[in-house]
């Protein structure tokens, strides 16, 4: 390979030259390529009526005019319209809210609340605002007072923040637990509150978003008490439904600004699939090996490069490999830098500075650099694995691309099904975002907890509204619980407690578990585990990982919600075996499944009751993934009442297509595996937010993959059931919402059922393996590929049936 690093070409050509070399040399690995042409800037003038000094300060900071979307945002905000700005990374989103806010502060002495999902982002913003404030005073105007308010704010500084801050930068958890329940201390602040700025809107989805929507209901209630109705300004990464999500969050119509006026250089994206090295098992070369190779080529071409990895461990591994290449000489300043959470703040600041100053050629990072930390722009972004959402993918890719200069992004797929699916479906990246962020603010348990918190903050009056449920019924319930008293037309809080402390915005059910490290005698809380995932993760004997340090669970105090762990050096991890039984309680609606000519089944949604049993766990050795032993889990059955979507095949059609019931079961299990993954993609959920199960819908049997790797039927008592003994064989495939009561994940899946089945079928049909592999239908056994009907083929038949395409066609298409 020619060492082009010695004489780096001008970056403009270097990017296209690198791309050319990659595409010609590794053509077979590139499954898709996309070029977004350069777009020129769309400029508009600064608003004429800006506060005195503000225009001068902006000009002094090199902003003599605005991008079109910034001006649009200003005009909407000035008119008191709620808005969301969903434009790409580095398009100047912060000015979209800073400008109207500063204008209101300077002209009318109003105040603003900024909310960021994390503390670090708030601190970054204060730094930026302080600079703007300096420019303002330099321009002869009055300054602004911007303070962070978070768990680290010392007690004696809090009063100053409350009474003197023009801008308070905080996070939803602090709003929920510290500000709203003490709103009278913030009276002065609330009385002046004109804007609520919510950054990183797309992260407010699922359970967290559902909680935050209720926190905003409480916020607006408190605002009404102080006679203000602030304007909400959201910013978001590009998702499919920014306005809808913002609207659900703040409860009022929101205008979306999606067209960016910022200039952009030409952007190329390559989708990279590592080569298959074992065709029988569908094993591909590791993503890591590909990522380091591409990174080496980029740096040697003189291009500033960022590599994103999905775990902190992977960041360290890739950094080591690249440092071995580029930082061999310890006397020279390092060219390669790692950046991730867990480093000291001062180290992180130093790294950011080195990046901004261009002293580093390559940075390896976790998602920590995906959000708005200012590191300047780079030329090449390499993603080691799909980040989990398209929105996050674009945010990371957005790190490459200086103004008007071309940039290159490479997404390197791992062998996960989602990665494999996406890398073969470039349209997900090319078309409009397919991702809908969903929340369900009226989820009963979440809503009830926030009614409780709201009642603490201000007495409810008869006739008030809060959420979509019947408020008087909920208040009556709380009265009977003893926390409220009704007198006159009001409901008063009368309990000796502080309800917000018992509600975590990041979970549904009360009673999270804390993980306590007892190594060395001391007791230190090191993690918190959601109630619903506790039984599968912190059973006695489990290996619990924190920042790739393994801990072993020694004791589990179930009623006390505590798991006691010690550090260990175990060379294995543990994987709980769980059996899930589902019973349909209430079918809301159903229809024939699929769009094809021959409907082979039905799809429906409704409420289900679920019993999960954890009989034991497997110990699995690292790297080899050998199963090296079993342990027992002694826990009561876990019950969950939630919502689900399910598919059923017509018994006759199924029998005609897959007469062997064993194979039918395997087909259903494979279909569930594939559907689970594509559904997580569509709903912007994590895999564990959804659950999957195959059973008969009435709890008489359910299917599991046994220790022998085969699908089995088991009865309610967990005893084996012979397939032939089942009178009416009607397998049902469930995807359920994995939170108590459901957080609204299953309804959109029902609406998109056809798309999901089609996607799942595409995932399995397009896989490079022969008989099935973890990238499509889940692990298969050696020899399965030689069977007449492989697990993959059985899965395709089941999915074909659910899709409604003719069974014979399906068989012919895939040569089975």
């Amino acid at each position, binding site marked *: 390979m020619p060492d082009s690093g010695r004489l780096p070409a001008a970056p403009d050509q270097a990017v296209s030259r690198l791309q050319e070399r990659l595409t010609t040399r590794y053509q077979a690995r590139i499954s898709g390529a996309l070029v977004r042409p350069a777009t020129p800037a769309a400029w508009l003038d600064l608003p004429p009526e800006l506060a005195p000094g503000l225009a001068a300060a902006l000009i002094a900071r090199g902003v003599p005019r605005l991008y079109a979307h910034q001006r649009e945002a200003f005009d909407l905000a000035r008119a008191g319209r709620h808005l969301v700005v969903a434009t790409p990374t580095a398009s100047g989103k912060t000015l979209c809210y800073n400008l109207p806010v500063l204008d209101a502060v300077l002209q009318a002495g109003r105040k603003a609340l900024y909310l960021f999902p994390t503390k670090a982002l708030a601190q970054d913003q204060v730094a930026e605002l302080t600079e703007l404030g300096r420019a303002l005073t330099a321009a002869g105007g009055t300054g602004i007072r911007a303070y962070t308010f978070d768990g680290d704010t010392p007690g004696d500084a809090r009063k100053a923040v409350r009474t003197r801050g023009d801008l308070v930068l905080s996070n939803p958890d602090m709003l929920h637990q510290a500000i709203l329940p*003490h709103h009278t201390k913030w009276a002065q602040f609330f009385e002046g509150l004109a804007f609520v700025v919510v950054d990183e809107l797309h992260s407010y989805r699922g359970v967290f978003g559902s909680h935050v929507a209720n926190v905003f209901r409480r916020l607006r209630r408190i605002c009404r008490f102080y006679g203000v109705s602030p304007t909400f300004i959201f910013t978001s990464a590009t998702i499919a439904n920014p306005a809808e999500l913002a609207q659900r969050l703040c409860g009022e119509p929101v205008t979306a600004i999606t067209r960016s006026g910022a200039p952009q250089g030409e952007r190329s994206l390559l989708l990279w699939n590592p080569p298959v090295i074992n065709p029988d098992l569908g094993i591909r070369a590791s993503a890591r090996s590909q990522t380091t190779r591409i990174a080496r080529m980029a740096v040697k071409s003189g291009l500033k490069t960022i590599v994103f990895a999905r775990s902190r461990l992977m960041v360290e591994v890739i950094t080591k490999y690249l440092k071995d290449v580029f930082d061999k000489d310890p006397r020279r300043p390092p060219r390669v830098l790692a950046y991730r959470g867990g480093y000291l703040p001062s180290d992180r600041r130093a790294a950011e500075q080195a990046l901004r100053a261009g002293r580093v050629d390559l940075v390896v990072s976790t998602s920590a650099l995906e959000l708005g930390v200012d590191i300047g722009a780079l030329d090449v972004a390499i993603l080691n694995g799909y980040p989990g959402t398209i929105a996050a993918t674009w945010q990371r890719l957005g790190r490459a691309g200086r103004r008007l200069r071309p940039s290159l992004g490479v997404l390197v797929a791992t062998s996960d099904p989602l990665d494999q699916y996406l890398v073969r479906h470039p349209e997900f990246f090319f078309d409009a975002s397919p991702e809908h962020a969903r929340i369900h603010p009226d989820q009963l348990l979440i809503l009830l907890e926030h009614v409780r918190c709201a009642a603490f*903050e201000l007495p409810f009056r008869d006739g008030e509204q809060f959420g979509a449920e019947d408020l008087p*019924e909920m208040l*009556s319930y709380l009265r009977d619980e003893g926390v409220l008293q009704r007198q006159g037309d009001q409901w008063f809080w009368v309990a000796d407690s502080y309800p917000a402390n018992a509600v975590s915005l990041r979970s549904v059910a009360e009673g999270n578990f804390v993980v306590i490290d007892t190594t060395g005698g001391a007791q230190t809380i090191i993690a918190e585990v959601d109630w619903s995932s506790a039984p599968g993760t912190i059973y006695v004997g489990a290996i619990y990982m924190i920042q790739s340090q393994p801990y072993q669970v020694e004791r589990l105090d179930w009623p006390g919600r505590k798991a006691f762990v010690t550090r260990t050096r175990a060379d294995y991890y543990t994987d709980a075996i769980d059996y899930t039984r589902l019973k349909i309680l209430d079918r809301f609606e159903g229809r024939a499944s699929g769009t094809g000519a021959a409907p082979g089944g039905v799809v429906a949604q409704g409420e289900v009751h679920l019993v999960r049993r954890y009989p034991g766990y497997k110990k699995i050795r690292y790297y080899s993934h050998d199963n090296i032993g079993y342990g027992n889990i002694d826990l009561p059955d876990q*019950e969950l009442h939630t919502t689900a979507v399910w598919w059923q095949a017509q018994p006759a059609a199924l029998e005609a297509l897959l007469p062997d019931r064993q194979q039918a079961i395997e087909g259903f299990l494979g279909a569930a595996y594939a559907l689970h993954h594509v559904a997580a993609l569509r709903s912007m959920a994590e895999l564990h937010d959804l659950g999957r199960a195959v059973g008969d819908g009435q709890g008489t049997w359910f299917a599991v993959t046994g220790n022998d790797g085969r699908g089995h039927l088991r009865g309610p008592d967990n005893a084996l059931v012979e397939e032939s003994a089942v009178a009416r064989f009607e397998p049902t495939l469930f995807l359920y919402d994995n939170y108590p009561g459901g957080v609204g994940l299953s309804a959109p899946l029902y609406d998109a059922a056809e798309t999901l089945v089609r996607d799942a079928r595409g995932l399995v049909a397009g896989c490079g393996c022969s008989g099935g592999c973890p990238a499509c239908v889940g692990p298969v056994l050696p020899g399965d590929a030689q069977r007449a009907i492989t697990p993959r083929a059985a899965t395709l038949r089941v999915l074909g049936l659910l899709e409604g395409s003719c069974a014979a066609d399906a068989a012919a298409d895939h040569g089975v």
Partner: protein
Amino acid sequence: MGFEERLRRIRGQAPDPTPATPAADRPALVERLRRVGVGRTADRTTGGIPDEGALANALGAECLAPGVLRLERRLSGGRGHERVLPTGMTAWGDLPWGEAVLAAGLFDAQGPDAGAAGDWLCLDTETSGLAGGTGTWAFLTGVLRADGRQWLLRQYLLTRLDAEPVYLDRIAAELTRPAALLTYNGRAFDAPLLATRFRLANRADPLDGLPHLDLLGPMRRAFARRWPDCRLITAESRLLGFQRSGDLPGAAAPAAWLGWLRRGETAPLAAVLRHNRDDLFSLAGLLPALVGVYRDPAAYGADCRTVAAAWQRRDPTRALRILAANRQDLDASGLHDLARLYRRAGDWVQASGIWEALAARGDANARAALARYCEHHRGDLTRALLLTQSLPPGPERERRQTRLRVKLGRERPAGQLELAIEPYSTGT
């Protein structure tokens, strides 16, 4: 499906095995909740409905408005307080208010003569909990003030939640200017809580801007290192010799009030009122006691050093007197304080005597002080240099050494200096 049934299901209980009644035939949810409510909170019926008249009778209180009771008494002291309490105006009026306020060092807003005795009032609230925030009520507010030779006690009790605005107005009327507040932990607890209640009721906070003397601060300063804690109950027992009998602990107050609201229980509320009264009388008694403590801390077993430190700025003579009188009990930092006061008073003999004694024990700060003293007052540059050389290394030592060498006018070669560095002893 009804709300409760759904909640039950979500929380993970198995669905009801008996087939549910068809939704249409089921009674309305409110109706079912009412039925369930009666069954569930049986305690509500056993105690009966809150009866305000009965409560007023039981307490000997008058009903000011529906939901607001007032208990008013003229007393010469609370139970057991007669022995320890100055009687009424005479004693309280004789108090050196300026001195007390100065000693507390807590409020500078008010001049020393601001507190004519009649304007001072003791304030204490009982609350529905300690959690704070807008959901915590101050259901009982007690006010005690001197009245001729007697004490006037007024306790306002909130017995209905929707009567809070009236209740607050009555309290505000007690606090009209030129009132001045005397509390125990009132700055951190009672005052912010009342501010919250007034704000929620859309009323101005009458406490805002009132002179406020919180005895917890000065009490802590004097006794934090002498007593296990500085709670009011500890202070009254140690300083006033007052022992409560049958006291309802403050922590039981929330349950007592909730017992009244939910079940109409009156007896625990009566106990809360007695507790509140005892708190107020102790508070009144503690003020003169605390003045005594700040005059002569040793006599009360208080921390002489911290008490003297409180006087240091306003009345250095008194601070010096306190420390000098207790010199044998002072630790090194106390002795330094004393030496500093002597120095400020120009008494160099006493000051240097203390430093010499401390330096002999190896105290580096004392050596530094002595070095300064030798250099600037005694003109003994040689000793100053020797003392300086024995100090811990650092830029300060280097600066001083260089300066002293210049002054001595005999820059010696380094080798000779080495010889001069010896451990300091009083003999040299």
